[in-house]
């Protein structure tokens, strides 16, 4: 490809050195062409200066000066980790490394956004739950009594979706169930009547009057009833 180097060709030395002007890479300009190019260059330089003057107003210049002095540091709140990485670090990276770095930066930013959204959602949900519980407590005087049981029931995955009213009903049923003794328990309680704290489920008064031999015989009768006659081996 033909190279077109303005500096080379505008360099007087280029002519004076008398380089080979017939080579494929070299272009020879006559005076008219040179003058045209020169005027074009001057026009471009003027346009550039106009644009600069239009952009760099005194106010904008003052703002840039203040940035240089570090007056605006406090406003830079959300500086990304990659913003601190100097450019030459990127320049030293291979394309693959650059891609990985970019991917990681993108994922980090996405995760942080998602985390923030999750936190916001959870805070909303917690506040809504608190409002619901407060409203429920206002309408149920014994709510605090059943609250621990309701909490226990709610931990069961089967009850995960139950509303407060259902949990409350189930907690009440649970307590009712605990209060009522089974037939076996009732029979045991009947036997316990008049027994001292040290006693077992048989009547203490009856046992106290018996000899140890009689107690052993009675125990053997119970075991025979349960397991049958005593085996020989």
């Amino acid at each position, binding site marked *: 490809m033909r190279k077109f180097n303005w500096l080379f060709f505008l360099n007087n030395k280029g002519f004076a050195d008398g380089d080979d002007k017939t080579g494929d890479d070299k272009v020879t300009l006559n005076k008219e062409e040179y003058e045209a190019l020169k005027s074009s260059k001057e026009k471009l330089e003027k346009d550039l200066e106009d644009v600069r003057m239009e952009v760099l107003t005194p106010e904008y210049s003052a703002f840039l000066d203040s940035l240089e002095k570090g007056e605006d540091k406090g406003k830079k709140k959300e500086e990304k980790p990659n913003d601190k990485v100097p450019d030459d670090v990127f320049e030293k990276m291979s394309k693959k490394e650059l891609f990985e770095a970019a991917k990681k930066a993108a994922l980090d930013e996405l995760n942080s956004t998602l985390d923030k959204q999750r936190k916001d959602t959870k805070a909303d949900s917690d506040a809504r739950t608190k409002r619901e519980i407060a409203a429920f407590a206002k309408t149920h005087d014994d709510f605090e009594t059943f609250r621990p049981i309701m909490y226990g029931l709610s931990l069961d995955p089967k009850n995960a979706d139950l509303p407060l009213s259902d949990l409350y009903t189930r907690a009440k049923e649970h307590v009712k169930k605990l209060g009522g003794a089974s037939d076996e328990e009732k029979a045991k309680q009947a036997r316990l009547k008049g027994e001292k704290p*040290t006693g077992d489920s048989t009547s203490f008064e009856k*046992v*106290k009057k018996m000899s*140890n031999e009689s107690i*052993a015989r009675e125990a*053997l009768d119970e075991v025979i009833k349960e*397991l*049958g006659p005593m*085996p020989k*081996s």
Partner: protein
Amino acid sequence: MATATLTEYLNTLYVTTWAKRRPKDVDQIFEENKLLKLYGSKGMIKYEPTNGRRLEVPLRVKKTTTSKFFGKGATFTITDFDPLTIAYDTWKNLGDQVVRYWEDDKVNSGSDVAHLKMMNSKLDTVRDTLMEKVEDSLWADTGGASVLDYNGLQYLVDNSPSTSATIHGINQSTAVDSGGNYYWRNQQKTATGAFSVYGESDMTNLMNTCNRWGNVDLLISDQTTNELGEAEALERVRVVNQEAVNLGLDHITFKGRIWIWSPKCPAGFTYFLDRRHIGFSIDPEVNMVMGPWKKIPNQYEDQVTQVVQRGNQWVDKRQCHGVCTGQAA
């Protein structure tokens, strides 16, 4: 249902029998021990669960500083007041084991009577051994977390109360209340001379000193001292204590208080106790219970189980107790 082997059958029989006779045996252990019987008579055998790491003894040693006589329109200083000082001690475990050898089981097999006889013999022995252990420990001069036994009476009512010793975590030589009084020392008096001459006056003096902080209602001596007291009392009108009569205790009285003797009491000592401030705590769930039968390793079909109890003796006030030492004819 699978048929039980002889070993399994006997395991069940022993557990069932112990469950039936345990209340009676426990009562025998506590009733045959005079000291515990007298604690029980005043409601000082306490049943409480031992779930906590330590035995807590609440003491009422602090006093308010805001009480005063007042006139019209006077104001009271409002200050919060926590009257409780908690003394701590450790729960103690007492236990014994019952071993059954396979060979004995085999020898007795075929005879229910032989098995029952052996079982009763083993269980009676365990009960008697535990009874002796309880008696020994209740009278020991040791206690606290450094020993495994119950706190002994000699430890709780010290014959040298001003020396440095820690009872329920409180040092008796240094602990003072807000008035500068040594609230964690019991009373002690050394006999002035021969019992026949000084016995009554020494005991009266010590009892009065104890009664400044409580109400002594039980005296326990060694046999000799108690007999000396009885010999003196024979010359006067015999007075019996109704509570001791009801409990079936052979006793004498001193100023209307029960006075008994114990073979475990040190010679020449008489303990003056206020039973409202000394007692014994037991865990009702671990009160001479029999654990599961286990096979003894490396022995063919030999079995072992343990009978265990958890409790401790304590005081919640010490100034009202006393000990008279050096009594002799």
